[in-house]
């Protein structure tokens, strides 16, 4: 069905899946032709970078988001207190949490602040790495386009038919 017929059909019977498929095809077409694609990626990246720099609690970088990395690389900003020793262990844990931890808190907070700065720096560096990856991708695409254009312009060799 051609585009006009589809649009006419949706005026009376809109199908969300079909419309979303149509919009996705338009985006893919623009991607293939290079129109706006870099610009849109930049906007998307800018949004994520703003979020990371704003210190969003979930703190996901675009790289982490797209690669679905686990959170294991993150710095542990809070002391992890746990026990496997039953009642005795829980008593020690209580003493650690309620008696030892509060007076040591000001030292911990000092370390926490530095660790938070490092965490922030790590996330910012990840975003810079992303920018480098994207720039590399753009350059590769540009080189491929130039090579293709160059091949098309190459004059036919002796005995070869001229290119259409």
């Amino acid at each position: 069905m051609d585009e006009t017929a589809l649009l006419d059909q949706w005026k009376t019977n809109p199908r969300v899946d079909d419309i979303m498929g149509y919009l996705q095809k338009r985006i893919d077409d623009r991607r293939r032709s290079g129109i706006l694609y870099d610009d849109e990626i930049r906007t998307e990246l800018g949004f994520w970078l703003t979020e990371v720099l704003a210190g969003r609690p979930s703190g996901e970088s675009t790289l982490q988001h797209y690669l679905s990395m686990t959170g294991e690389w993150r710095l542990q900003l809070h002391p992890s207190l746990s026990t496997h020793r039953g009642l005795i262990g829980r008593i020690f844990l209580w003493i650690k949490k309620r008696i030892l931890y509060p007076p040591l808190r000001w030292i911990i907070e000092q370390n926490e602040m530095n660790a938070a700065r490092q965490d922030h720096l790590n996330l910012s560096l990840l975003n810079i790495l992303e920018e480098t990856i994207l720039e590399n991708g753009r350059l590769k695409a540009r080189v491929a386009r130039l090579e293709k254009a160059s091949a098309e312009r190459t004059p036919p060799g002796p005995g070869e038919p001229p290119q259409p």
Partner: protein
Amino acid sequence: MKIAFVIHRYAETIVGGSEFHCRRIAEELSARHAVEVLTTTAEDYVTWKESFAPGVETINGVTVRRFKIKNRRNLVRFKEISDVCFHNPAHTAEDELEWIRANGPESPDLLDFIRKRHSDYDVILFYSYRYYPSYFGLGEAAGKAILVPTAEEDPAVYMTIFADYFRRPAGILFLTPEERDLVGKVAHGDLPPSEVIGFAVDIPPSLDAEAFKARHGLRHPFLLYVGRIDRNKGCDGLFHYFTEYSRRRTEDVDLVLVGTKALDIPNHTRIKHLGFLTDREKFEALQACELLIMPSPYESLSIVVLEAWAMGKTTLANGLCKVLRGQSRRSNGGLFFDNFSEFCEGLDFLLAHPDIRAALGRSGQAWLQANFQWSHVMEKIERLIAAAIKPAAAERSSPPR
């Protein structure tokens, strides 16, 4: 039948979220049953500051018992324990229980009342799994408890303590099929009997969109956002996308925001904030807009999306939220976006094709009318009570063999 609702806060002034859902269901059920609400004295959802006196009052024909709160929410402590529970894989179940207590509103009096008086009620509906009254209260009356989890796909639902908790009530009322799937995924084992109830929309009579636009000086066509203006609702992303969209396009369209502000709004000529509006004015805004934008990544049910469809308006929603994506696809009532390209493409398409925009709105409206009238919602609730509570009660009252 005598039915109790347990919820963290309850007031006529709360016009969205699980509290609004709870109030409207309680009011509708009160036409056929004796209904009471057991809640706290808080109105502010951030601090749980006491706004009401403890005691009994009546709101729209429903008896409301308010219990005092032991502590206001300590936001520093809550952030600390949230970081531990959401980012430290070695955290313990005790940490998670501490998270529930820190989340609050902590009301031992309310728990005490449920413990002593639960036999006065035939069924008790517990709203929102993550709050202190529902988490600890459900354990006091599990045999006659119906849970309305209002679960969203955020980090809290994956805490280990909820895996067993979701199996404890006699029945569960879900708001969407996506919520049922989510809870089924995190629970250890089979869930109790359940129903997916959704919500019914009541449209105020005699709306006047033109008068609304004149009153608020809205001279251009506009996209509408209704809800709390908050990072958690995806508003920062919406502002970013809309300002970028406006910079690239020449469409004469504004973004109008309705709701209380918990986030800085960009100073942009095309973004207008109207603040909190009455229910009537909210529906007039829906009638006047081109379409509703819903950027929230976490929803168990978006009531305002249903309200937009009830008004015959289409929606453009965050497709990363499974609930919004599912609702849009089932109803054929609106489009969705996963990224900026899709946001631009979807908006361009809807603004350029008013006939299709209207057809999508009509489709959403028809879906709502076919599936979510009050009679449908009430029938499902009664059915679940019959399936989950009555057999349990009969089992309790039958003589031992």
